[in-house]
């Protein structure tokens, strides 16, 4: 039995070495165990008390050792089964190791065994057999239990308080004694027991011999051993898919199928507490809209304290640098050489540079420019090829040369054979269009501002405006007698009717002098104001015509009737500075273009119909489409606006092709063409198709730029342009004293 115990102890020793976590539990149970042990040792204690022989001291000590061994065994009671069950594999190994120790112990044991048996003889006093019960149950009885034979064990004599006191006083070991409940006697604690108590109090391992820090024996490691403990082959089980795992997985799969588990919906539960500053020291990832701060320039070679000689400026360069304005300097420092780093002085521009850097950082533009990923071709509207839109004028045919001043105006006769032009050289000339031959020349006493051929094909003549006069002139050589007579009749018939009261009149219709009559003048209109008449324009029938004198205030716009020599003042008050006036080609409408607006008046109803808002700053010219529903204006701020009267009071199209102010715009009377001429010396030809279908918007295609015909004189280029009435030709006049025909 002892042998078994020893073996178990050795086992225990080894085990505790590897299983330190059991220690705590063991120490906790220790106090109880001590009681148990006392029970077992009761006999010994008694004997030691009863027999004071010295001899017995030795077995006592040996007994102690056994007690400790027992204690160890007790300590191990809970673990033993686990130990064996868990490591049954290694049993053989343990036994092998144990054998060495066992052999040492066995000799000792033999001696011990003999002594024990002797003592057993003596101590065969029946112990209390009541077992482990609360002993206060026997408080009321004279005995404290029963021995092996069932005889009562009487309570030992219990001393009174005095005895206790005396014992306390006399017995020096009294404080070392503990009352044993089972025997109702005081037992003196041994040194070992005291040591154990002390250790427990100190929260140390009770066993003094136990070394918790024994080196670990790696019994089971991952290292493959040359001579493995077990040579058993890898079991099949390790290679076979686990049945239980499969079952578990099937269970999950079924749950997913039935919808009890939604895969992918694994909500990662946020920890309740987290480190707020955990990532504060890491650099933040760039925001998609992040704009990095401007980079600083890296230092240059010549900024070194010891730059190579080629970087050092010579005297001349130094001087130059110093004379330069600080803002013009390429570099704001002069490369300098120092013998050593120690000799480098403090950097004088440090604060300045830091300040500039700060300015850079907060003034740097933080604007992200999105690159438009659009095919530029797709933005260009699909227009027909200009080649398909012919005919239109393409090249300069020839010039009409003769004038010696700017040619501000000209007009073409309705058949397209003659051209009359008025110039700053105070002459009016008539040209044969096809040959460029000057047929007529008249000299007047002022700059000719406007000229207009009578649109009536039966009448041969034109009106011309110079200073505050308007004259009707008939170049009689160009027409046959019938026509001349008709014209004469047509124009001068009014003299018979209109000589009533002269005072109220805005305009005096005056008979030209004989000399003037000889040269073709038929009637002269003297305006009562002294302002220059800037524009004359015909009504389509050639009876009425309007004159415009922008500076003359309310009398600026007048409408005259040629046959009756009557003059009307259509507007009592005129808003703004009128730039152009025009009759509608079909309807009884009248267009008045001021600097920014075009007002449309109905002459029959005598009311304003419409105001077109051009959006330009200063209108220079105006023309109405021969169909009457569209008008174009040119402006001094380079724009050409196309208005569709049915569409809106805002421009349908705004064209900005000229680089200088537009001087004149013109529609072709037969072909779908219109043109603009500008101070940049060019004439732009556009295809402007107007459809009868109201739903279809006009088609506007730029087809040709006519350049090179006119020189720019005093920043004035082409002053007037007009299409030939029947052919796709355009005639233009310029500040360079010539009129050009483009075909």
């Amino acid at each position, binding site marked *: 039995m002892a042998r078994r115990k020893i073996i178990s102890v050795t086992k225990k020793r080894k085990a505790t070495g590897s299983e330190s976590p059991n220690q705590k539990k063991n120490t906790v149970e220790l106090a109880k165990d001590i009681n148990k042990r006392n029970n077992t040792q009761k006999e010994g204690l008694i004997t030691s008390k009863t027999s004071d022989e010295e001899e017995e001291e030795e077995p006592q000590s040996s007994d102690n050792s056994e007690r400790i061994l027992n204690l160890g065994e007790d300590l191990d009671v809970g673990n033993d089964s686990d130990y064996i069950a868990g490591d049954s594999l290694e049993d053989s190994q343990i036994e092998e190791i144990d054998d060495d120790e066992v052999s040492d112990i066995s000799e000792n044991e033999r001696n011990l065994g003999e002594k024990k048996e002797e003592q057993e003889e003596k101590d065969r006093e029946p112990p209390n057999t009541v077992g482990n019960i609360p002993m206060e149950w026997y408080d009321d009885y004279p005995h404290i239990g029963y021995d092996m034979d069932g005889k009562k064990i009487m309570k030992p004599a219990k001393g009174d308080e005095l005895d206790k006191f005396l014992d306390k006083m006399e017995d020096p070991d009294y404080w070392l004694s503990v009352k044993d409940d089972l025997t109702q006697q005081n037992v003196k604690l041994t040194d070992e027991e005291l040591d154990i108590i002390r250790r427990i109090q100190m929260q140390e391992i009770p066993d003094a011999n136990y070394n918790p820090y024994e080196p670990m024996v790696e019994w089971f490691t991952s290292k493959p051993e040359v001579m493995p403990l077990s040579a058993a082959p890898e079991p099949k089980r390790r290679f076979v898919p686990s049945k239980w795992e499969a079952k578990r997985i099937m269970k999950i799969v079924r749950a997913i199928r039935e919808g009890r588990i939604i895969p992918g919906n694994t909500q990662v539960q946020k920890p309740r507490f987290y480190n707020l500053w955990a990532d504060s020291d890491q650099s933040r990832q760039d925001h998609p809209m992040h704009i990095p701060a401007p980079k600083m320039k890296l230092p240059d070679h010549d900024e070194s304290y010891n730059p190579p000689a080629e970087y050092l400026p010579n005297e001349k360069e130094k001087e130059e640098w110093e004379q330069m304005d600080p803002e013009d300097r390429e570099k704001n420092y002069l490369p300098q050489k120092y013998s050593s780093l120690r000799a480098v002085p403090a950097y004088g521009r440090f604060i300045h540079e830091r300040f500039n850097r700060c300015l850079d950082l907060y003034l740097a533009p933080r604007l992200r420019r999105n690159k438009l990923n659009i095919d530029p071709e797709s933005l260009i509207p699909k227009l027909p090829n200009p080649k398909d839109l012919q005919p239109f004028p393409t090249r300069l*045919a020839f010039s009409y040369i003769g004038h010696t001043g700017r040619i501000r105006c000209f007009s073409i006769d309705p*058949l*397209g054979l003659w051209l009359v032009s008025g110039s700053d050289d105070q002459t009016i000339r008539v040209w044969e269009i096809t*040959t460029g*031959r000057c047929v007529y020349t008249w000299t007047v006493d002022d700059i000719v501002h406007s000229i207009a051929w009578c649109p009536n094909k039966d009448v041969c003549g034109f009106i011309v405006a110079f200073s505050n006069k308007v004259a009707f002139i008939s170049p009689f*050589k160009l027409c*046959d*007698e019938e*026509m001349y007579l008709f014209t004469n009749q047509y124009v001068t018939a009014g003299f018979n009717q209109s000589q009533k009261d002269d005072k109220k009149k805005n305009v005096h219709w005056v008979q030209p002098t004989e000399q003037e009559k000889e040269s073709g003048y038929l009637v002269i209109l003297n305006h009562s104001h002294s302002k220059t008449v800037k524009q004359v324009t015909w009504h389509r029938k050639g009876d009425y015509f309007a004159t415009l004198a922008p500076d003359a205030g309310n009398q600026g716009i007048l409408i005259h009737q040629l046959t009756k020599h009557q003059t009307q003042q259509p507007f009592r008050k005129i808003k703004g500075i009128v730039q152009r006036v025009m009759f509608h080609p079909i309807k009884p409408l009248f267009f008045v273009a001021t600097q920014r607006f075009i007002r449309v008046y109905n002459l029959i109803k005598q009311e304003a119909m419409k105001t077109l808002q051009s959006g330009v700053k200063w209108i220079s010219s105006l023309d109405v489409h021969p169909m009457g529903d569209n008008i174009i204006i040119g402006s001094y701020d380079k724009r050409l606006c196309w208005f569709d009267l049915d569409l809106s009071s805002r421009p349908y199209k705004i064209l900005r092709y000229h680089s200088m102010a537009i001087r004149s715009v013109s529609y072709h009377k037969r072909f779908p063409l219109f043109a603009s001429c500008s101070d940049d010396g060019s004439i732009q030809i556009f295809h402007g198709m107007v459809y009868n279908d109201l739903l279809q918007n006009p088609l506007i295609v730029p087809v040709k730029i006519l350049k090179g015909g006119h020189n720019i004189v005093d920043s004035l280029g082409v002053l007037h342009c007009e299409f030939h009435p*029947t052919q796709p030709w355009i005639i233009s006049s310029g500040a360079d004293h010539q009129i050009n025909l483009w075909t």
Partner: protein
Amino acid sequence: MEQDNESQIQVKLVTQQRKYAVSDSAILVPANLRRYGLSEIVNHLLGYEKPIPFDFLIDGEFLRTSLSEYLQNAGLSTENIVTLEYVESMLPPSSLSAYQHDDWVSSVRGHEQGYFLTGSYDNNARIWNPSGECLQTFVGHDAPIKSVAWVSIQEEDVICLTASQDRTIRAWHSSISDKQYDVLYECRGHKGSVESISINAQEALFSSGSWDSSIRIWTTTATPNDEDGSDYEFIENAEKRRKIRKKKATSIIVKKPISILTGHVGPVSSVFFDTKDPAKLYSGGWDYSIRTWDIESRTNVDTKNCDQVVYDIAYSEKSGLIASGHADRAVRLWDSRAEDVAVVKLSLVSHQNWVSAVSWSESSPFMLTSASYDSCVKIWDIRSKTPLYTLRASDSNSNNHNRKKESGKKLLCIDWSKDLILSGGEDNRLHIHGAKKIEGPYTKENL
């Protein structure tokens, strides 16, 4: 004749000019030969000491490149025999003289007898003889003369017509020897400038085209075809008319047209009688059309349309083609016989500006000449699309500075009369170029 690295081509040389005919067997010539080389071969074959320049035609077109290039461009094989037709080259025209006028020369006509009739913007018409003397000056029109025409020259008696911007046509009679002239009659009726007149083959009728878009037919006889009783309302208004016109010709016979052809919708710029058929008239106008009229039935037989204004037309009886000058710088050729087919047979573009006048050569069915506002006269052989020669009006006697100045001078009229090309225009001169096929020493510089 054999050369390394060069292929040779078999050619057959043929000609319609009997005197230059060579054997029609095929001969081998180097493929890189041009006109000059071929001309040398022909001269060699003919055994001429004085070489005569020849031009070569393949399939009716002038050879302007080397033979190999031509074949390559036409996609022809070099293995086959190429038939080359050769004709005597026209020598470059030489400027003979220039007659100074007081004003622009608007119209010119040459006569077989060597006289030139010119109309000018100074309202006068003149007759010149070949030595440059102005034989006669007809004064009477109130406006520039736009067109002139010969009626007849019988010994000393000359009858000619002038059309003017004053809407009248006058017939003048004079004798060459003395300076006397008188107005045979005056044709009134046009309401616009008379731009062109043309006399038919029988010289009995003439037509006039005017800006009033009508064509009027008149007789050339001096007797008025109408009773003068209805001599126009302007007689009634004679007083007023006197104010307009200082010169009033009271004694002039006034004629009325025998017929008025209307159809053109724009000004008529040119009329031209068929030189064979006295009843056939061609006209061109601003309405882009070339019309054929039958005088007798007064109907518009045929209309050919293009897309440009027609300035002048000319008909060649030898080739039956109508040439027209246009505002788009082109000379177009139309087949007068092809009715209902309004297709341009050929378009000759080389001028830099409007073509103001065209005229066919009387001798050749292929040659014509054109005058343009770019002050150039071009001579064309219609077998080639490039002009044969370009004559600058100012080439003859003016230095560079003047030439620049005059380069913008428009040419207004041209007439190819026998061997002479007459042209006049804005530079106030009548230029006369000799266009004769002169047999002379052939040098490289001439070509």
